[in-house]
């Protein structure tokens, strides 16, 4: 792989991660959001694989495959099943409406570029130049976690945060040891499984899956 192809491919894949994150803010249909998440998982795996090919790192390639399977296939699959429990589920009234969310996402992206400038300046390279994209994904994910009402959207936000962190680690350190990535991926899987039970229970008890209905934490 020559340098120009490598740079282009990496930019494309990392960009896809951020774009899919912003798309989750844009779309209301929960199933579409899950599709975006799947797309992001695949892009993330692509980043890992491109880095692995560039640096001839077998372990990183293995990590990339693991990410592809867990975040690209299994987690979105499970979420899709949850979404299917409530077929017309839409993020009808997010706490911040869609246009405002998109503007805010733009602000967050600018902020992350400002913040990451220092990190990039320490070791300028093709990979570290894209660190702001990872930070922006984290912030957009967190924003989604805060402003969306449906349980599934909240978990998608959480996974966005996780994906953003994973992207930053790939770009900065060429991947963490496999065991760490395995651990964090399994965590995400567990969260999704827990969510499944939660949504089923909420559906039975409240007839809807908006977390607004739960104020039991009070007192």
């Amino acid at each position: 792989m020559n340098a120009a192809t490598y740079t282009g491919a990496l930019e494309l894949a990392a960009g896809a991660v951020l774009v899919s994150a912003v798309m989750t803010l844009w779309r209301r249909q929960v199933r579409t959001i899950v599709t975006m998440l799947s797309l992001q998982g695949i892009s993330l795996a692509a980043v890992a694989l491109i880095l692995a090919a560039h640096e001839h790192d077998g372990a990183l390639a293995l990590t990339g495959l693991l990410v592809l399977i867990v975040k690209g296939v299994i987690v979105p699959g499970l979420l899709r099943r949850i979404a299917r429990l409530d077929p017309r589920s839409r993020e009808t009234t997010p706490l911040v409406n869609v246009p405002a969310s998109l503007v805010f996402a733009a602000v967050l992206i600018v902020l992350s570029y400002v913040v990451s400038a220092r990190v990039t300046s320490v070791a300028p390279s093709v990979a570290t130049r894209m660190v702001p994209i990872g930070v922006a994904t984290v912030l957009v994910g967190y924003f989604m976690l805060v402003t969306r009402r449906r349980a599934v959207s909240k978990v998608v936000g959480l996974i966005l945060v996780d994906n953003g962190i994973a992207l930053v680690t790939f770009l900065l350190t060429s991947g963490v040891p496999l065991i760490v990535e395995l651990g964090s991926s399994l965590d995400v899987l567990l969260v999704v499984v827990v969510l499944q039970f939660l949504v089923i229970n909420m559906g039975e008890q409240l007839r809807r899956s908006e977390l607004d209905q739960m104020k039991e934490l009070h007192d």
Partner: protein
Amino acid sequence: MTLLLVGLGFCLLGVLTSALPRTYRVPVTASCAALGCALAFCAAMRVLVTGDTVSFHTTLILPLNGFAMTLDPLGALFIVATALVGFASCVYCIGYVRGELQSRSAMGLFVAFILSLLAVPAASSIATLMLFWELMAVSSMLLIVVEHRHRREARDAALWYGVMTQLGAASILLGLLLLTLRGGGQTFTEIKSHADALSPIVRSSAFMLVLLGFASKAGAVPLHVWLPKAHPEAPSPVSAMMSSSMVAMGVYGIIRVGDDLLHGGTVWWWIAVVALGTLSALYGALHATTSTDIKRLLAYSTIDILGLVLIGVGAAGALRDTGHPAVAQLALMAALLLVVAHAGFKGALFLGAGAVERATGTRDLDQLGGLIHRMPVTTTIFALSACSIMAVPTLSGFSSEWLLLQGLLHGFTDASTPTLIALLVGIVALALTGGLTAVAFVKALGIGFLGQARTLGAVNATEVAPTMQIAMALLGAVSIVLGLVPGLVVPLINRAAQSGLSRSTMSPLARGTGLVLAQLRGAIQPAFLFVGAAAVLVAVWLINRRLVHRSARRVDAWGCGRDVQTARMQYTATSFGEPLQRVFADVLRPQSDVELTHVAESRYYEQSLKYQNQVSDAVEQFGYRPVIDAVLRGGKAARRIQNGSIHRYLAFGFVALLVVLVVLA
């Protein structure tokens, strides 16, 4: 050391046997603990007699530095005092325990409490000390709430105690950790060897932190607020342990850290200790005179006596580097003797108060009276111990306070001006508290035990179980022994004081049965005094019989011309303390209410008269209340951001993250 460890082992066994079925639980558990106390007593006595220091170290029990115990004469003295009261309390328990205290957890905690008290003076590393210190705090706090179903005050008391003791423990821990800054090691030997290398500021702040914690345990005003709440609410054997042993641990800590680990430090530390002691002695004595609850009265008198002990400890510290080191040792010996004497008489008094409460169902002096006819043994021992605390000659209170006075008086020669002032103030406090204590205990004895019974409970009282009587008599005997032949224990106290003052080799008292100052003027022989007084009494009695020849005639007491006399005409505890309450109204801040309703026909005749008198703790009201209220207000304000919405909680995190990022950028 083995003996002490076996003793502690028996206590541990006692904790386990508290799981036995109800029928055997109390006797077996109490016997185990009593045996443990007896063994610990022997171990400590051996160290005191031989003067050897023994130690034990294992890495098995505590992580990092292991478990280190050292028994030196100073710690041994405190173990002796604790073991005495512990033994008596265990024996007392066998007859006393009933109701909630009988439960598995309560008995287990009681023995754990005794275990921790026996172990604290032997701990010789920070981790070991804090382990037992916390065990002591937690077990005693839980023992206070044993009877919380009947007494709501117990919950409040336990909360106060818990907060104060935890703050104290944190302060002690912080202070001790400061001492490890230079050497790094956390055993007392390491701290001692590196103590001189620390900067004066670190040493002083460490001592002040440690003093804060230990003084609050010793009930020093203004850190005493928990004591008059907690001691009365605990079951009586526990009160006895708390009041005679646990508070002494505060004194032990001050001597151990200030005199032993830090080799004395600077004079102003000790002047601060004298100031604390003076304040406590006066404040405690004053409140004791106005208390009508017998256990509350005893608790305040504990503050008073511990104040005197602190005066002695402070004087010893202030004098050790000036002119007369022998006088310093004398003052420390007086303080230590007073600790042991206090363990004896205050233990007996609390056990006696428990007996009264058990027999009559109340501890309000205004509802007692006439107990001398129904509970002669309890009354005798209570009277003996009360005389001892009032410093009646030939009893232990007198010999120890006399020694303290000698220590303070002889310190005048070449003392610096601040020390001189501290000593003078100490002497005045000693004199004034002597008088006030006498008022308080004349009241407790006269109103509670003499005269006529005021309520049905007091009328129907019967003498308590024999084991309880034995326990009280045992502690009463301590007062007599220490009072009549104080010379016998002088060598032991001397050893303890020597080891407290970093291995001094002086002995300021001559050998003998009495107390004779070796190089200074001053001597007292209580045994001779007793024989002389007894001879005079017998002579008077004989003369009376021979010369006056009049047989005794029994008549009713003079009733101011009224025929019928009722128990309600007697002086009450409230009225007895009222004049003093008036004199010291500025300090005590009593709240009195008189409510008068008239007969409808004429305003010249009253229908009913209601009088209410309450003395609350001024320090609590003006020092602690504002702080507590501010904390509560802060807590209420903070609650407003908690509305239960998950979105809001997530938003807090998000906003915090953004703020951090913006600040970084």
